[in-house]
């Protein structure tokens, strides 16, 4: 199936939990914030959140800013 990950199309297996995607793409998962289809998913719920075809996932973290 395909998901949209940070604006780009990404292939992933059926029933992939959000946590697997985060661990695959983020070396340091502390302070990562995840949204699925515009709704925040708390980090305690990353394992339970099963992605479905067409889901839009946003992963954000802190960067320098003024």
């Amino acid at each position, binding site marked *: 199936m395909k998901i949209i990950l*940070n604006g780009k199309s990404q292939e992933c297996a059926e029933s992939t939990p959000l946590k697997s995607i985060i661990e695959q793409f983020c070396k340091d998962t502390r302070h990562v914030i995840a949204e699925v289809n515009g709704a925040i998913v708390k980090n305690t719920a990353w394992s339970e959140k099963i992605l479905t075809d067409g889901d839009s996932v946003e992963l954000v973290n802190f*960067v320098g800013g003024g």
Partner: protein
Amino acid sequence: MLQDSPFTIAGREFKNRFLLGTGKFKNKTDLSDSIAASGTELVTVALRRIDLERHQENILEYIPKHVTLLTNTSGARNAQEAVRIAHLAREAGCGNWIKIEVINDSKYLLPDNNETIKATEILAKENFVVLPYMYPDLYAARELVKAGAATVMPLGSLIGSNQGLKTKEFIKILIDEIDLPIVVDAGIGSPSQAAEAMEMGAAALLANTAVATAGNPAGLAKAFSLAVAAGRLAYLSKLPQQKVSAEASSALTGFLFEHDHSQ
């Protein structure tokens, strides 16, 4: 020595009135050295999409735990987007301090005061500590107070321009009329400009670009911190007024070359 009251936002006391932005540093060592050299207790950070193609260092590793994090909403073009960013920041577990920054102009990067007021009202009701960045307009500042802002952060000049206090007279009005700490933000390019803002009664000052792009960021960070403290002390000491004509420092009598021609 004059006693100063601590700079307080939402019940948190800060000894240092210099706030540092963390953007544009060439490397994270320069950032951590600048935080240490300046003694700042409050820094701003931003939120962005993670770059999935290359590993990014976690900036929070370079910010000591005792330093308060203030997440800005940069990238927000309206109140709704600012609120969304604030929610994301809170979710990261780094506190509920938010600097509202709503910009819908890519040339001058000027803040949209109307949208900033709307976002402030929503987030203050949700118990965020809201520090709105704004164009120094008295009516807008009054609305921000009503909306529940913790401070007001007027711009000195265009973001990243190093032009200094172009809006000086309007910031003065806010200092006189607004019963919240006024934190001068944006465009402050040198310690002398920072001191000038503090001398006129700003409660604190935030700089980023000037420090981050200096030849020696930690050196300039320290210079800024000293200038902010000097400016504050000058303000507390009640600066004398400027005068149009000269006034000699010594009495204009008893000069050595004076002769009494009456004899």
